[in-house]
């Protein structure tokens, strides 16, 4: 029986879909079978981030309505073994499915895949309720900004009320800005939200370029963000991953002198 994990944030535009696409791809790289579910009915985007937009025949609402089987609605990724996507419908709205229907859909996918990653829409209304209905656990993505953290906190409260355990990904951290005192640090965000941290993804230009091409960054593998996403995927799958050690000249000197080199 697989695990269903919802990726959520409250606020839009913090990187939920990109994180979902990359974690799913990375989990498949690690040898697990993963299916990515776009729960953003009416505003689907996981298909374009994955570069699978030209292959959609059926979608989530079709599967729920019985227009096709769930397995038939899945799109197999040709670049990766073990990777599938269930696209959202672009023409229906959030109210066209119920939490109960989502729950049984996710239940069915958990029988055939190790990981079911659910890309949650922004907001805390019907779309959110549908997306979390079948989830066993949740990942909250927050960027180090007041608005994003405020919304994340709201979502954490709602997830706790539904007894769904939550872990945190801090996205788009710039160590340079943190050092200048102009950005909340990883530890600031953890302190405020009081959540277990899965990982911190650095602000990385490469993500823009790979997203333009519809290629999950972990498939190209070179960028800092991609490396961190792979580490997060390992952690999700239960592998032990040591904390990232600060690299670079000054960090090495610091370590040599016995100073703490853990990123702030």
């Amino acid at each position: 029986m697989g695990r269903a994990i919802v990726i959520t944030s409250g606020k839009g535009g913090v990187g939920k879909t990109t994180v979902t696409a990359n974690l799913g791809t990375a989990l498949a790289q690690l040898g697990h079978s993963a299916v990515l579910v776009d729960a953003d009915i009416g505003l689907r985007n996981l298909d374009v981030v994955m570069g699978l937009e030209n292959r959609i025949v059926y979608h989530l609402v079709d599967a729920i309505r019985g227009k096709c089987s769930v397995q038939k609605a899945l799109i197999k990724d040709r670049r990766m073994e073990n990777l599938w996507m269930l696209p959202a419908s672009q023409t229906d709205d959030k109210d066209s499915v119920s939490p109960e229907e989502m729950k049984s859909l996710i239940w069915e996918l958990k029988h055939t895949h190790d990981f079911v990653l659910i890309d949650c829409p922004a907001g805390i209304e019907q779309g959110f309720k549908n997306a979390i209905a079948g989830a066993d656990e949740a990942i909250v993505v927050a960027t180090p900004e007041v608005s994003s953290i405020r919304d994340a906190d709201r979502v954490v409260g709602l997830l706790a009320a539904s007894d769904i355990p939550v872990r945190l990904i801090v996205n788009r951290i710039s160590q340079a800005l943190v050092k200048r005192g102009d950005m909340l640090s990883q530890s600031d965000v953890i302190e405020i939200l009081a959540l277990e941290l899965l990982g911190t993804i650095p602000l990385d230009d490469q993500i823009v370029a790979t997203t333009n091409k519809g290629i999950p960054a972990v498939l190209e593998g070179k960028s800092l963000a991609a490396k961190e996403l792979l580490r997060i995927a390992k952690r999700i799958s239960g592998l032990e991953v040591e904390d990232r050690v600060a690299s670079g000249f000054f960090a090495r000197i610091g370590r040599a002198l016995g100073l703490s080199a853990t990123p702030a």
Partner: protein
Amino acid sequence: MWNGIKEFLTGKSSREVAKGRLHLVLAHDRTGLDGARLHEMRQEIAAVIAKYVPIDADMVEIQIETRSRETQLTVSSPIQPRNA
């Protein structure tokens, strides 16, 4: 070091300001109280205190703050001297 110099010159860093604002905003969000309800509560608390000790009701302050997932509500009010 730059951090230190900048904070010395300008007061708090924007990072510290953001943290402070978040602690306050989240505390209020977590109570689920809107401004009107909070105002009402402040007036009722002031009335209760005034029954026992002389106070200026306008000076009663309610502070809601949060650390980790704990939220603390503090009421503060200066007490007027007797026979004042």
